[in-house]
């Protein structure tokens, strides 16, 4: 019975009764001006038509603006317990239409949570379990990646390409390599006038060479500092924990020469026993 997954997402189809529509409409437009009421009514009719066209829907039986808010019994609660996010392997067994519905359930949940968070901030109140936002976001990320997986599989099978935006290694203006996503389809470099222009004019000259030299120096400095920092850390560990397992250190810090570090002044410390 271990199921923590968020959100019950399959709901039975509901017939839209006129009475329920008028009821919810009146609640949603309480206290509006006349013009606002008319536009609201127009929007509302449109929305109803749109939903009715889809026939099967997944939301609860409320259709008003209060859907942006949490259940009334959760108002002012100090803790609202929910399960974990959807995992990829759970989403992979769901059909495309199920994923489509789930996406909108998650989207609505996110809207609701953001509204509640905003409201809590306004009222200087506690927003219970803010990790719910992250759980929804994680689920949405996973869902999107599963959809991408499926589309990629289709395109690879049909066209031999991924069907996604292409990205190629290219030099940017200062001669650094970049991996930008291309907006459109790549054309061959030899017939690409833009590329030819770039080749003739950009990433050339002494200024670019100087920049590249300094840039390489900067990266080398960072690497050197990181190396020293690691070695220093290892020496301090050896100093504080003299009986430490060197195999562990070698595994965690493969680039540090442990034997050499063990004999260093910093490792030995200032005790006369070690100095001798």
């Amino acid at each position, binding site marked *: *019975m271990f199921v923590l997954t*968020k959100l019950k997402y399959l709901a039975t189809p509901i017939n839209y009764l006129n009475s329920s529509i008028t009821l919810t409409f009146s609640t949603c437009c309480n206290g509006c001006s006349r013009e606002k009421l008319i536009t609201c009514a127009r929007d509302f009719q449109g929305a109803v038509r749109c939903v009715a066209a889809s026939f099967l829907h997944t939301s609860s039986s409320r259709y008003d603006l209060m859907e942006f808010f949490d259940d009334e019994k959760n108002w002012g609660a100090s803790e609202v317990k929910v399960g974990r996010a959807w995992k990829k392997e759970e989403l992979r067994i769901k*059909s495309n239409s199920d994923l489509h519905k789930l996406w909108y359930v998650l989207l609505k949940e996110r809207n609701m949570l953001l509204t509640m968070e905003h409201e809590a901030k306004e009222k200087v109140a506690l927003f219970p379990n803010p*990790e719910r936002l*992250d759980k929804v976001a994680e689920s949405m990320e996973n869902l999107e990646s599963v959809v991408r997986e499926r*589309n990629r599989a289709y395109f690879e099978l049909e066209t031999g390409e991924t069907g996604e935006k292409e990205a190629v290694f290219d030099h940017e203006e200062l001669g650094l390599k970049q991996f930008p996503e291309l907006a459109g389809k790549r054309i061959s470099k030899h017939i690409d006038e833009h590329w030819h222009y770039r080749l003739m004019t950009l990433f050339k000259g002494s200024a670019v060479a100087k920049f590249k030299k300094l840039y390489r120096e900067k990266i080398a400095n960072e690497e050197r500092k990181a190396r020293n920092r690691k070695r220093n850390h290892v020496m301090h560990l050896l100093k504080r*924990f003299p009986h430490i397992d060197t195999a562990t250190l070698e595994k965690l810090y493969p680039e540090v020469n442990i034997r050499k570090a063990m004999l260093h002044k910093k490792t030995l410390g200032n005790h006369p026993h070690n100095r001798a």
Partner: protein
Amino acid sequence: MRLTLLLFENVGELTKKYANLPERYIKRSMEQVYWKTPNAIQYLPRTVQRKKFRFTTNRPWTYQFLQQNERGTHRKKVFVEPILEWSIFRGDRVQVLVGRDKGKQGIVSRVIQERNWVLVQGLNCHMRFTGKDKDFPGVAVLSEAPLLVTNQVSLVDPSDLLPTKIEWRFTEEGERVRVSERTGRIIPMPLMADETHDYKSKSAYKESPKDTVESELTKITFSPTLRTFEMDVMNEMEKKEENVTNVADVPS
């Protein structure tokens, strides 16, 4: 460079497991961004934020943790002995090797992996006085001080209730178990080790109204078809693609 920094600031796996919180949330709640470049083309993406945190008994996503790592403060680095394989978990019976309760056995109530610490129920305690005033001496609260897992506590062999060193081995079924080096007996994993902030055990979890029930979760509704996601959804809704420039692209 970034990797090493990440290694040091990492929240322990056991801490995360007990919290049962998404990693993203822990990261978000710990974050202390001092300055971030605006999201515009003239700026390189740079963030100035706190990188070094002092981990204590306060959990990293709490307000107390934030207070201890207050903005603009800097505390001396704490060196923690690296451990490759963690072997003491919540609910384990351990013997205290140092301090006023030396030789006594107790149950591990908390693990603070970031510092190699464990708290043992009712052992290695001190009195904390809260609410102290000039008229009122304060209320005494018994609080356990942390003990290092490396040399201040030792796991207890359940067969003879004596402290022992352990080794990780595999059973014939392929299960990874802790084996006492002295007697060769398996030290079973305590039930408390699976406990999280939300539930005592996975089977004891109570579903909330927004959770998907297991029968719905495990239902396989996917059947592979030669369609993209969009084509499949449109097909189901009985909609036709209208914005097609190339006739060959029309899905069948």
